[in-house]
């Protein structure tokens, strides 16, 4: 008997050893770590693709690859960065931080958690494997508009469809787990309106995922049926409608945009108060702003389709709703600045990335507002202006926030401070690189350079060369990030419970690194600890 009890105890007090620890783990931190490493690997894979694209675009003319391979690179870069880098990074951060921030021992559904992670590597292996098949990988853009993705697609489109199905299933399971955990496992006193902003943004994001991932699954399933089973959902020749696909896709796609940015808002809302040593300004309006953005995200989708030939009433409706999103987004930016205002700021690496996030995300927001103006959109649509816009909200937006989050919580995770000097160097290289890469793309877009072309007219040459140089700076400086993270994991100055003197929240009441089961006894949450 005692042996059994002893084994039982072992199981509770620490992880298993070797590969089985990672394969069979149901621990939120282990799964969070898996998600984060997968995300980093995918970030480098997608990054290599982006650098190949930028290398081909370094000069006019075709130098390094065929136009078809170029299209495969842009398509897979988009898919991998969205579904492989940004989304798993957010889920990884949620896995690590949600139980620790709400005072729970673990996630509510640990086995589902294991499954939702382990689907992903196979999904990406399958998708990337198509690049090595005879017909080549998906080459129809990450938005896969039919008939290019149906009648005219390479045969590997089937693998693409199933890979997207698996990514979607993983996201839905992850979202269910996060919702259930947040709604059921909060410590006593952790009322909804005391939850940290990161928890709020993830709760709302999880609902967005639940709502739109099935829509994406429906879209790819219809593509599959059109390709293999003779249906004509999107084939005009058979009575279908290629534009219907775009409506379905963007009904998924626009909320997806907010899935990629709301958790980033959450991270930034944790970091700025810490380093300003001042409570978040306008907590309630921050929560309401996130909720409004989420709701509005369902009624703006066709602003991606202003040139598709909608009736004027549709154009006007989507223009007005899209412009409306600027209001809650503006509230968030104003609140962040008001949080900094009259604070006592220090500028450690997480804060540098957070400040850069606010500035550069706002620039992305400005170009977003410009794109919302339908008549002007006729000039911007499908040019590099759009490329500049969404890279400003996704790279120095979502990705800077993720990096900021990693620097912020890494001392908590591994118990060591990272190398601050190297962290700052990483920040400045990234910041300079990202702006040299994407700012000139505004100009090439306004000058008339279309997206997704492997070769371009001579007047775009200077902007493109500049952009490529920036991309090398940004891309290679991320290796420094890898080095800093590994170095911190292997050792460094002990972090202590509260790694940052201005940090508040339950995660900072745990030791660094935290125990295997975060809170075995629920803490009691007071108004003071929650909102200061």
């Amino acid at each position, binding site marked *: 008997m005692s042996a059994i009890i002893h084994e039982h105890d072992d199981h509770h007090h620490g992880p298993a050893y070797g590969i089985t620890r990672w394969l069979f783990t149901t621990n939120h931190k282990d799964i969070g770590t898996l998600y984060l490493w997968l995300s980093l690997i995918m970030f480098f894979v997608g990054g290599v693709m982006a650098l190949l694209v930028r290398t081909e675009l370094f000069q*006019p*003319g*075709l130098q390094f690859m065929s*136009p*078809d391979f170029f*299209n495969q690179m842009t398509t897979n870069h988009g898919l991998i960065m969205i579904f492989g880098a940004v989304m798993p990074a957010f889920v990884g951060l949620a896995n690590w931080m949600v139980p620790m921030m709400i005072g729970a021992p673990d996630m509510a559904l640990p086995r589902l958690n294991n499954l939702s992670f382990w689907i992903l590597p196979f999904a990406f292996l399958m998708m990337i494997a198509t690049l090595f098949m005879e017909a080549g990988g998906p*080459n129809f853009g990450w938005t896969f*508009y039919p*008939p*290019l993705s149906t*009648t*005219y697609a390479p045969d590997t489109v089937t693998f693409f469809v199933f890979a997207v199905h698996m990514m979607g299933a993983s996201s839905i399971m992850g979202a269910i787990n996060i919702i259930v955990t947040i709604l059921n496992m909060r410590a006593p006193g952790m009322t909804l309106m005391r939850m940290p902003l990161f928890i709020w943004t993830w709760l709302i994001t999880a609902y967005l995922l639940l709502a739109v991932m099935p829509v994406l699954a429906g879209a790819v399933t219809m593509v599959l049926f059109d390709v293999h089973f003779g249906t004509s959902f999107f084939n*005009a020749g058979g009575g279908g409608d*290629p*534009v219907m696909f775009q409506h379905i896709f963007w009904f998924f796609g626009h909320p997806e945009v907010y899935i990629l940015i709301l958790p980033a808002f959450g991270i930034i809302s944790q970091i700025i108060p810490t380093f300003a040593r*001042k409570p978040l*300004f*306008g907590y309630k309006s921050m929560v309401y702003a996130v909720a409004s953005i989420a709701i509005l995200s369902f009624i703006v989708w066709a602003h991606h389709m202003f*040139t598709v*030939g909608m009736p004027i009433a549709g154009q*006007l409706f989507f223009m*007005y709703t899209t*412009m409306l999103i600027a*209001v809650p987004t*503006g*509230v968030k*930016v104003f*609140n962040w*600045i008001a949080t900094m205002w*009259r604070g*006592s*700021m*220090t*500028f450690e690496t997480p804060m540098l990335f957070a*400040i850069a996030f606010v*500035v*550069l995300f*706002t620039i992305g927001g*400005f170009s977003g507002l*410009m794109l919302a*103006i*339908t*008549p002007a959109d*006729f*000039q911007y649509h*499908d*040019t590099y202006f759009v490329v500049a816009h969404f890279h400003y909200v996704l790279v120095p937006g979502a990705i800077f926030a993720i990096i900021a989050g990693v620097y912020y919580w890494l001392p908590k995770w591994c118990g060591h401070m990272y190398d601050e000097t190297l962290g700052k160097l990483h920040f400045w290289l990234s*910041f300079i690189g990202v*702006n040299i890469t994407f*700012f000139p793309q505004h*100009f090439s877009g*306004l*000058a*008339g350079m*279309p997206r997704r*072309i492997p*070769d371009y*007219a001579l007047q775009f040459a*200077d902007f493109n060369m*500049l952009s490529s140089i920036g991309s090398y700076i940004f891309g290679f400086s991320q290796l420094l990030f890898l080095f800093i993270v590994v170095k911190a994991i292997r050792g460094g100055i002990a972090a202590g419970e509260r790694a940052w003197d201005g940090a508040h929240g339950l995660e900072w009441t745990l030791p660094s690194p935290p125990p295997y089961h975060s809170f075995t006894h629920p803490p009691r949450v007071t108004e003071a600890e929650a909102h200061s």
Partner: protein
Amino acid sequence: MFPDSRPVRQIFNLRHLFTTLPLAALGIVLSSAGFADELNLPVGVTDISRDIYNLHMIILWVCVAIGVIVFGAMAISIIAHRRSRGYEARQFHDNLTLEVVWTIIPFIVLVALAAPSTVVLLRMYDTGGEDLTIEVRGYQWKWQYKYLDDDRNETVSFFSSLATPREEIDNQAVKGEYYLLEVDKPLVIPTNRKVRFLVTAEDVIHSWWVPDFGIKRDAVPGLLNDMWTVVEQPGVYRGQCTELCGKDHGFMPIVVNAVPPDEFNSWYDEQLGLAEARKAALSKTFSAEELMVEGERVYNAFCVSCHLPSGAGIPPIYPSLIGTEVVTGPRDDHLRLVIDGVPGTSMQSFANQLDAAQLAAVVHYERHAWGNNAGDVTQPRDVIALSE
């Protein structure tokens, strides 16, 4: 080398570049009348494009103004409210008045922006009262223009595809001034006339855009979109396909030649004459040499992007035409394949793109170029016989 290297150098020298970058960047726009052509949206040549330009400038300035306020406040805070200066944090975290104000003011600004945008959009959608209608049809990877004027007895129709030589793209020749923005046969429209475009596509979705006109519309197979323009200034205007349409998406430019109405009319009559000549060709008998010359021309306009100038194709998607079953096998099978296409692949049906004389020539060419030697001759009447 870079027209904007000046601000970039500046950025490198600044310590707080996150706050100064947007200002520096906008400074480029402001201080650079000389660069404006390259950095800003072109004004264009139509009323609509000028309206769009004005909207673009209004919203750009609104963004600049908001940016100055927001980033300015942030910069002050970053400089003044830092611990290294011994600044103590104030612990306020709410201000209802302030929050209401910064919700309502942006809303008012947005309404003010929405109003002129709505007016311009309504004008863009006013497609009635046209003087001339042209159907624009996108193909992988060329455009077809069809003049649909009721007053004419005949409809003029032709294809317009990339004229930049392959050697320039492959960096074996110096790139010309209009590299990738030149076509074999431009669209011709009269100036000072309301031209209505009906836009559609044959295979995948394309998008027809001429920046100087301020018009862009997707060409969707099975759908007919319409838009219009009135061009006052005669000139050559260039654009590109702006919807990913497959491997040669970057290689299907648009060139529009706007000419005075008189000149347009004589051009149009000339086109009708060409159509007559093509009709006459259908009953002629050509020599093998004539077929090779015409065949090469047709091949280079219609077949070359997939099967390549060498005929080698890009297997397995685009089969080789050198010594393969199709080009050595029965001639009629070869003809049928080109006429009907191969359903479910990117091999289109050329029945509606090429007439019998062109089909005969291109098939003859394919059977006798690149070392192929089928030893037969294909005449227009063979094609007609096969079609009947």
